[in-house]
């Protein structure tokens, strides 16, 4: 039953990724699609943290920044292959999350919000101010992953946009698969029970602090991998990737689509990624529209878009 639902969701996602390119008016849209998938990946991490375990973070862009700069600096200074640098970034993010997670996750509500916010800001400040290492606010270039050249040698010629569309799409699918596995597993149930009642969770033997920490670490790794992919596909990265606004964007995407739902979060990522593209003609109105969308969705569709729509459809069916 639950397993079937998991495969249906994954199939829908895979079908969308496969079919959408047929409707692209130009090659540029592969880039947009790849960006949506990367954002979707980091937002799925937040689904685990916010939707499953009920903890907020306003600093997860910090982990995205670590992942991104690992891919920029690893090859340059350690001679690492960019792919290995991605893994190194994920390990560093995971360990850092483990380290700061324990004291931070004792906090609740707004206190947790400000602590995570502080963490994110510290990371982005480090990236901005350590010019010698990071290139400062102007950013730094990122070495190519080299996979496309490999494919070309094998006789498969695809554009950079197409390659990253496919690669990010696969990463998103894997991320969604892991998150859906977790949802219906002992660990996932333990995390979700915290959301319902921490006291009750602990009286059935669930180590509340440990489960929160797990969700925090897992979501940090998601954000880090997404940051790495973003750096690799752009070939360039600035400290904005770790900035406060990026953290906010991530949380908004998650909440907009439906924070308890993997598909919903991906939808949220798609909408907020597309918004600036659609509004390029009215660039000055972008912030105005973004702000209005955030407020209106929270007031009228508090569960997020996808769960609210699903609920409405089900209501009509009965």
């Amino acid at each position, binding site marked *: 039953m639950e397993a079937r639902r998991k495969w249906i969701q994954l199939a829908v996602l895979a079908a969308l990724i496969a079919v959408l390119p047929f409707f692209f008016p130009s090659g540029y849209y592969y880039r947009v699609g790849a960006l949506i998938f990367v954002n979707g990946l980091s937002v799925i991490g937040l689904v685990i943290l*916010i939707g499953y375990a009920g903890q*907020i973070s*306003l600093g997860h862009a910090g982990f995205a920044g670590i992942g991104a700069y690992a891919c920029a600096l690893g090859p340059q200074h350690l001679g690492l292959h960019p792919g290995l640098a991605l893994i190194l970034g994920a390990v560093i993010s995971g360990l850092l999350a483990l380290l700061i997670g324990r*004291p*931070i996750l*004792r*906090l609740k*509500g*707004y*206190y947790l*919000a*400000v*602590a995570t*916010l*502080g*963490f994110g*800001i*510290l990371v982005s*400040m*480090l990236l901005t*101010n350590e010019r010698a290492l990071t290139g400062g606010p102007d950013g730094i270039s990122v070495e190519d992953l080299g996979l496309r050249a490999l494919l070309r040698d094998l006789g498969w010629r695809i554009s950079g946009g197409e390659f990253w569309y496919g690669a990010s799409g696969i990463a998103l699918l894997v991320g969604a698969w892991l998150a859906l596995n977790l949802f219906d597993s002992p660990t996932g149930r333990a995390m979700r029970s915290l959301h319902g009642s921490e*006291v009750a969770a602990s009286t059935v033997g669930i180590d509340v602090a440990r489960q929160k920490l797990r969700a925090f670490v897992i979501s940090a790794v998601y954000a880090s991998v997404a940051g790495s992919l973003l750096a690799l596909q752009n070939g360039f990265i600035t400290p904005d990737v770790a900035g*406060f*606004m990026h953290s*906010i964007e991530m*949380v*908004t995407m998650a*909440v907009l689509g439906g*924070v308890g739902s993997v598909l919903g979060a991906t939808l949220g990522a798609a909408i907020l990624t597309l918004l600036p593209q659609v509004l390029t003609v009215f660039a*000055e*109105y*972008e*912030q*105005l*529209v*973004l*702000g*209005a*969308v*955030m*407020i209106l969705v*929270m*007031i009228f569709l*508090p569960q997020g878009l996808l769960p609210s729509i699903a609920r409405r459809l089900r209501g009509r069916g009965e």
Partner: protein
Amino acid sequence: MDALLQFIFSGVTVGAVYALVALGFTIIYNASDVVNFAQGEFVMLGGMITVFAHQAGLPLPLAALLAILATAAIGVALNKLAIEPARGAPVVSLIIITIGASILIRGAAQLIFDKQLHRFPAFSGDDPIRVMGATILPQSLWVIGGALVVFFGLWLFFTRTLTGKAVLATANNRVAAQLVGINTSWVMTLSFGLSAAIGALAGVLVTPITLVAYDVGVGLALKGFAAAMLGGMGNPKGALVGGLALGLLEAMTAGYLSSQYKDAVAFIVILAVLFVMPQGIFGKKSTERV
């Protein structure tokens, strides 16, 4: 020694602004349990509206008054249009709503005004006053004085007036306050108006020193929020102390360590305080009832 005094002067000036923003946070938090991330935009609006009203020919005091009133009206509108309809929503939703409001206000300001940096003349001139080898701008005294006046005004309001006590009662227990006949909806409207006005006042006072542009609100909101947290959310005394402490800390860091990392040290200290005292310096410990 002179340098230390100089750093203290600049720290207290900046700290007074943080304290005003933190007081704004506190008032709204007490009345509605909402942390209003748009608080920084009130400061921006205070500065910007004054600038443009002054340019349009209004005398400065009148322009400032207009800015404070207009911002208060925007605060009330924010409550009526975005906060009240979402009553009872989870913390994450409320955070998104107020951040959305802050982005919206910023976007509107950028359209209505412009993206330039602006200032208007200081109230009592720009000649620094010499104090024991250090100097302080007359406008700094206006800022510090403004923060103190607002703080004592609020203290009188909350302890001596029936309306103020109603706000406190609502903060303490909304349902009980309603039962004894307090109009909690009016209390919330009042709180948003008051806190927007205080934010705008901060903007009016500090613009001659720091200048104002459409995007200064985010930074101020974060610092004010941090200051409020540092002192213990919901405690006006905590907001004042937290704001001043944060301002001093930044000035000392900028002076003695690194001006690039002055913001960083503030957040490090906040993290440290939250780790040791999860409820802030003046926060209350509460036992969860089950």
